[in-house]
């Protein structure tokens, strides 16, 4: 550990040490419940004390999450959680910062802060809960709704293409991208833990269900019978294998990827790609992240995690260098180093 911010240590914290006494007010069956529980569990496993943990959000259903935590938590304004988190983490790099956002908060009104937060590589763990709908305002399409999606504000269907959060992250030169489903508790915990350990802006997309306004939007991949064939759990250094019988694999196909059955059409286990999340180039990561569950399974797990300087550390280093170089101890020293004159 070259930094003391993500002070990963073995200490006996329980999930409830990070939960306050406020009743959770999401709708029954909302995917956000699972995300909160996994987050609390991840925090306890990480062992970072509650007073060293911050949870910062914008506005939306998912952004209510900070109100249920026993941490230093801040429910800010629509779309601005990323900017507030950037200032907070830059001011105090000792704190572990979780940001909670939704597809509207993060990619519509907060889109500018999102891309710059990713570009700067500020060491924040960003949970992007993607239910492809505005829930708190009762059912309008979001920037991740598919073209043609009908909602209260698009009664004839939308006439615009959606963002794909991974693509946007890589376009903003992101160093970390992971994905999970609200119903995949183990993978969710794994990616949250990995996000916390990653030094930089860790984007974690969680495909999450809105029971009320967009029920079943992800069921094509999340339904129990579909999931094994329509998702793949990527693990760094391991073969890309999936399927009910774990006999399907991802292989290279020209400049693209292809799903094959091992032992058929001449493909063997040796043809199946090994996941390299640490590869500097995001080219393959992007192809993996764009798999949509039709011909190729939706990729879950940590798709990309590469080392790069973090913003808050670079700022702190510049402070130390400038202090050492100029040797000023206070404002008076700075003023006196300029042109001055005496009046008797």
């Amino acid at each position, binding site marked *: 550990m070259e930094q003391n911010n993500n002070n990963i240590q073995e200490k006996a914290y329980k999930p409830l040490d990070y939960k306050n006494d406020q009743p959770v007010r999401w709708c029954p069956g909302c995917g956000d419940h699972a995300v909160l529980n996994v987050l609390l569990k991840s925090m306890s496993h990480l062992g970072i004390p*509650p007073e060293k943990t911050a949870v910062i959000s914008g506005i939306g259903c998912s952004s209510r999450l900070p109100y249920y935590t026993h941490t230093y938590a801040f429910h800010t304004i629509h779309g601005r959680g990323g900017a507030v988190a950037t*200032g907070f*983490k830059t001011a105090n790099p000792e704190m572990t910062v979780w940001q909670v956002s939704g597809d509207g908060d993060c990619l519509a009104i907060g889109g500018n802060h999102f891309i710059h937060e990713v570009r700067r590589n500020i060491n924040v763990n960003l949970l992007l809960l993607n239910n492809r709908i505005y829930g708190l305002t009762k059912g309008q399409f979001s920037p991740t709704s598919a073209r043609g999606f009908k909602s209260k504000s698009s009664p004839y269907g939308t006439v615009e293409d959606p963002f794909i959060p991974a693509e946007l992250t890589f376009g903003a030169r992101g160093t970390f991208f992971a994905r999970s489903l609200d119903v995949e508790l183990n993978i969710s915990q794994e990616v949250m833990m990995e996000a916390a350990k990653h030094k930089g802006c860790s984007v974690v997309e969680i495909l999450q269900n809105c029971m009320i306004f967009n029920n079943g939007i992800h069921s094509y991949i999340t339904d129990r019978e579909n999931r094994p064939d329509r998702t793949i759990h990527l693990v760094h250094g391991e073969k890309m294998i999936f399927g009910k019988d774990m006999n399907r694999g991802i292989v290279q196909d020209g400049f693209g990827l292809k799903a094959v059955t091992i032992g058929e059409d001449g493909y063997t286990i040796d043809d199946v790609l090994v996941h390299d999340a640490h590869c500097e180039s995001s080219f393959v990561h992007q192809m993996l992240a764009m798999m949509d569950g039709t011909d190729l399974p939706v990729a879950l797990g940590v798709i990309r995690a590469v080392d790069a300087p973090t913003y808050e550390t670079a*700022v702190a280093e510049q*402070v130390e260098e400038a202090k050492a170089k100029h040797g000023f101890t206070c*404002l008076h020293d*700075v003023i*006196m180093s300029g042109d001055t004159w005496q*009046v008797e």
Partner: protein
Amino acid sequence: MAEKAKVQFRQSIVVRFSGDSGDGMQLAGNIFSNVSAGLGDRISTFPDYPAEVRAPQGSLGGVSGFQVHIGHGVHTPGDECDVLVAMNPAALKQNARFLRKGGAAIVDIDTFTQAGLDKALYTTDDPYEELNLKAQVIEAPITTMVKEALKDTGMDLKSQLKCRNMFALGLVCWLFNRPMEAPLKFLKAKFAEKPDVYAANELVVKGGYNYGHNIHATVSTYRIQSDDVRPGTYTDVSGNKATAWGLIMASEMSGRPLFLGSYPITPATDILHELAKRRDLGVKAIQMEDEIGGICSAIGASFAGHLAVTTTSGPGLALKSEALGLAVMAELPLVLVDVQRGGPSTGLPTKTEQTDLNQALYGRSGESPLVVLAAASPTDCFKMAFQAARIAIEHMTPVILLTDAFIANGSSAWRIPEEGEYPAIKPNYVPASLKESWTPFMRNALGIRYWAIPGTPGLEHVVGGLEKDYNQGVISNDPINHAHMVETRRMKVANIANYIPELKLKGDTGADTIILGWGSTYGHILDAVTRLNDEGIRIAMTHIRYINPLPKNTAELLSRFKTVIVAELNNGQLANYLQSKIPNLNICHINKVQGQPFLVQEIVDGVKNIMMEEEF
């Protein structure tokens, strides 16, 4: 020949440098100001430059100016200049109106070709006649002489011509009897890394100086008496730099590290520049992706326990208003500096106005009171930035500090404060005795929320934009609680009146009429009142730096006068505010919305007109 020179002893003189925006007029003016300040003069400067970085060369739109007032009793950059330097016909045309009758214009006669006159849209071939110039004109062949001075340096023509400003500087230095070494010292420091550039500039400055010497017989020379000022160590400071330094001082006196989240905007950006340099003092100044990012990162830093600041101008304040509401609601300390410029919209980005007062006072959703202060001069920016930070930290509230382009870019000699001159700032931390029972919106006896610094065990809490329960600090939609919280936030800000200085009277305090202003108009109003009192016209003055809340003697003091004249660079924003707070006042207005500071004479005339009308 030299013996025949007329030497005028004047209390103060005003010099205006003007040329193309690429001619380096700001640099020449700045060096001349610094040289004068170094000799003990009081100075006040006013850069007046176009919004375009480089408008077409020689065009009227591309003219950049820098005015400096030096000498004794200097409070403003001066209404008119005694000497105008015009590097081309366009500069002369744009600035001739600022030249006083009997003053001197120095022009680069080499640029007064037919093409140059055409570009500046002269209609005749006699520019002086056309401009009705009642001044002595020194036709200096500056371009020719600069080329001559640099002919052996091997520099290309373009680089040679870039030195023309230094010829003008040398000439003006000679004119005002500044020693040659003084500007060279500044240039040497500026071009320390580029000895070739320094050498060229030195040749040209000396060329200008010597040219002045050679034409001595035809110019009146001014000598300027030094001002008698309080003993101490002085430096020259612009309002933006003073603002940055005042914030650093507040950080040192409060023990809270300084954070700036900002986005470049004219004319506020120099505060970001200065604070970005001050990483060497531990300041974390960051440039964000937009104005909203600037204030939101500052709010994040404030939540983290820093003295957090965001800097902007009018259009940026508009973008920040939702986040300001969040700081009001979360009751976090925050300083927002608005360096006002001409508006609305992009307006006049480089010009000065006081038109953001309404926006600062009222420009948010909901009942969202906050503190509004205004600095009166470049050096006052230091004090008011310190006060803004003190109030924000001690009273847990956002504070808007209003300055403007005039004082932000203008500069004055400033006595450097000595140790102990500024008080300690005491953050309202959660007292140890409350630690067990503390909730996030618990308050002290003055209604001020406590500040719990993240990282402290046992003080984990949630803040946010939703209304909170008065007692428990958790989300509440209760109607009576909301009304109670609205009133609590109002009282918290109103109570700050007990922690700011009272208004003081100046001028003829027994008069029936008082004139007041706020912010940067102080010097002009003071000079006007002095002039009026000298003429036997009875008038008092006061000046408002603390706008919300107002000093607690405001109503009593103003109610003593039959007539209250409010002079401001807008259409009456402070006047309307005062009328709403103190309805019985008989308020008269002097307003100007031209993107320019008042002229002292405009205030004098305005007062006389009002007094005549009031008599009928």
